[in-house]
């Protein structure tokens, strides 16, 4: 077995080893810990990229399957890398890399073991993307949540502790639902392996089907809490706005974990082969997603603090994704995946940018004063590292404009391309160049079209308001000191979106292939269940 065959386990192993190795190092050597941690995140990013190329090279969208204990699939634990999970791995490691680099400038000094917590969360997120069975999904989910509690509380202060308390309580209750769902599904079908489950669902008798659907609904609730679907997402805005900026930037991936699992499970388990259960829950996702977009849209307009604005942008993007999953059309899903990548990168960049912009605000501004009081501003002298950036305001303004255009979906960036391909998927599923048909859409789909465009408008209005307040009418004209190490991660995240824009053709063809593999569950099931064991050296 070549070394490359072990690539799928590395996005889990590298963060685990790094996190564990960093714990005994004294926190006074923070910069060393930060550098080690950033290097390890960069390695995970490279591994994820090579996994993405490997997954794209596989014939017919067959996933790479890694048998963890060398036991054959339905009995042993498997890791599965298909195009979708490889894409999510690249996205999460890129966001992690950016947020972590940003934290070295000052935020990792606000508490203990920041980098270990960060790596543990990366471990949980990557594991959730890779695992091929429901119970390991639970374990990775809990690792991710446990670390996110620590990251949310990082920096302490009354506001973070209060919001952290709510966040933990809600997630613990959601985990109970998760366990109930998993155990009901096991009780009804006798398996937890996703591929095996997809095979068995079509053959269930009436009573077991009822139990299985109840289990799937409970399981779905747990992920909908994570993906912040209305009315399960009221916790999000407060928690994300209270978190320290690099933590909040990394949290941008958390709602996407929920959306990813919902996409994966609805397509795999409730495809055409599921018999009477086919399409289970899709309407909940569609209508729930629509209301979530509306909720996010209003929230974006109503929020005064920048952190809340960014949090509501995350809710809007979550709603857009859920509704796209609910429509369950191949072309719409391909567009929604491009939207997922773009909105995650842009939201993460926005969370980082906010902190730099708030430094530019008039120090006596009441908003900031209230924030500082609420968060318990620390008295320690701020010693920052690195080179200060010249022409700070121009650079910050440019980054802010690009982020706005990405989030609102204005041309020419990838946010626009993503929304156009969702709309194109809705209107015309014919060959390229064929006339678009406006007649095949039902009421919910029309609502989706309208909300998709309105949400862009509301984001644009809200971000314009903030931009004018910060960059044009700054009363004191204070120019913040911004260091290279703080602006570089933002440019990295935005640069990734630019790459996505320039390479939109190849990105979309990758995502089209991803979506075709998703709507054809057989291309996932068969390779997982038939993955060969590696014979041990003594074995004939």
């Amino acid at each position, binding site marked *: 077995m070549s070394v490359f065959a072990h690539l799928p386990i590395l996005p889990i192993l590298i963060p685990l080893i790094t996190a564990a190795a960093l714990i005994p190092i004294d926190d006074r050597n923070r910069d060393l810990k930060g550098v080690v941690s950033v290097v390890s995140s960069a390695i995970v990013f490279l591994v994820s990229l090579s996994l993405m190329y490997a997954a794209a090279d596989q014939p017919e969208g067959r996933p790479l399957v890694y048998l963890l204990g060398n036991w054959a699939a339905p009995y042993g634990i498997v890791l599965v890398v298909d195009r979708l999970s490889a894409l999510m791995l690249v996205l999460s490691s890129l966001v992690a890399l950016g947020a972590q680099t940003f934290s070295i400038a000052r935020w990792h000094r606000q508490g203990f073991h920041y980098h270990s917590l960060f790596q543990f969360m990366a471990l949980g997120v990557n594991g959730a993307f890779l695992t091929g069975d429901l*119970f390991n999904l*639970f*374990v990775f989910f*809990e690792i991710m*949540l*446990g670390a996110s*509690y620590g990251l949310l*509380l990082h920096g*302490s*202060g*009354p506001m973070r*502790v*209060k919001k*952290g*308390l*709510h966040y*933990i*309580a809600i997630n*613990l*209750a959601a*985990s*109970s639902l998760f*366990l*109930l769902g*998993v*155990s*009901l599904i*096991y*009780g009804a079908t006798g398996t*937890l392996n996703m591929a095996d489950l997809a095979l068995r669902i079509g053959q269930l008798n009436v009573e077991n089907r009822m139990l299985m659907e109840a289990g799937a609904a409970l399981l779905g609730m747990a992920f909908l809490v994570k993906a912040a679907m209305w009315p399960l997402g009221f916790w999000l805005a407060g928690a994300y706005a209270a978190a320290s900026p690099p933590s909040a930037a990394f949290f941008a991936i958390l709602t996407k974990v929920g959306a990813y699992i919902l996409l994966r499970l609805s397509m795999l388990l409730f495809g055409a082969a599921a018999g009477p259960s086919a399409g289970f829950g899709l309407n909940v996702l569609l209508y729930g997603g629509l209301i979530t977009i509306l909720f996010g849209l209003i929230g974006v307009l109503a929020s005064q603090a920048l952190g809340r604005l960014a949090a509501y942008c995350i809710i809007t993007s979550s709603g857009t994704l859920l509704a796209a999953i609910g429509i369950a059309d191949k072309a719409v899903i391909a567009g929604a995946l491009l939207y997922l990548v773009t909105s995650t990168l842009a939201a993460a960049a926005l969370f980082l940018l906010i902190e730099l912009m708030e430094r530019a605000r008039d120090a006596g501004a009441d908003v900031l004063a209230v924030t500082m009081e609420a968060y318990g501003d620390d008295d320690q002298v701020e010693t920052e590292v690195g080179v200060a950036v010249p022409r700070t305001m121009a650079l910050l303004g440019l980054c802010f404009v690009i982020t706005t255009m990405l989030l609102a979906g204005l041309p020419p960036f990838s946010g626009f391309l993503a929304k156009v391909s969702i709309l194109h998927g809705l209107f015309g599923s014919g060959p390229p160049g064929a006339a678009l048909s406006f007649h095949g859409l039902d009421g919910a789909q029309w609502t989706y079209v309208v909300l998709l465009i309105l949400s862009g408008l509301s984001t644009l209005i809200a971000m314009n308001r903030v931009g004018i307040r910060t960059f044009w009418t700054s009363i004191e004209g204070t120019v913040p000191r911004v260091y290279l190490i703080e602006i570089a991660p933002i440019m990295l995240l935005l640069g990734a979106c630019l790459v996505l824009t320039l390479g939109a053709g190849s990105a979309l063809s990758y995502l089209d292939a991803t979506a075709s593999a998703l709507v054809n569950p057989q291309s996932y099931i068969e390779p997982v269940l038939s993955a060969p064991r590696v014979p041990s050296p003594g074995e004939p």
Partner: protein
Amino acid sequence: MELVLSAGIGVLAASGIWLLFRPRTYQVVIGLSLLSYAVNLFIFGMGRLRVDAPPIIEKGGAGGLLTHSDPLPQALVLTAIVIGFAMTALFLVVLLASRGFSGNDHVDGRE
């Protein structure tokens, strides 16, 4: 047997949910703990109730769920207990921190 177990799970879950909606942090902690007990028992129940069945294959006996109880839910429950315990401990720490900041034990930090 079935009645006792289901009544037990029901009472635990109902008290847990009621406590979860109370305004005091301590009540919320106890509520979450009761809820996780109910969930753990429920996972056990999903392995089907068996009385006097050996937990693993007996020596020389053939494997099969007719001769021994299903070991998988027990493994699941063990993991769930460990994780639930750790999360409750963490929650307690946050509860104390919250009390330290706000001076009371209301979940919103004020009466």
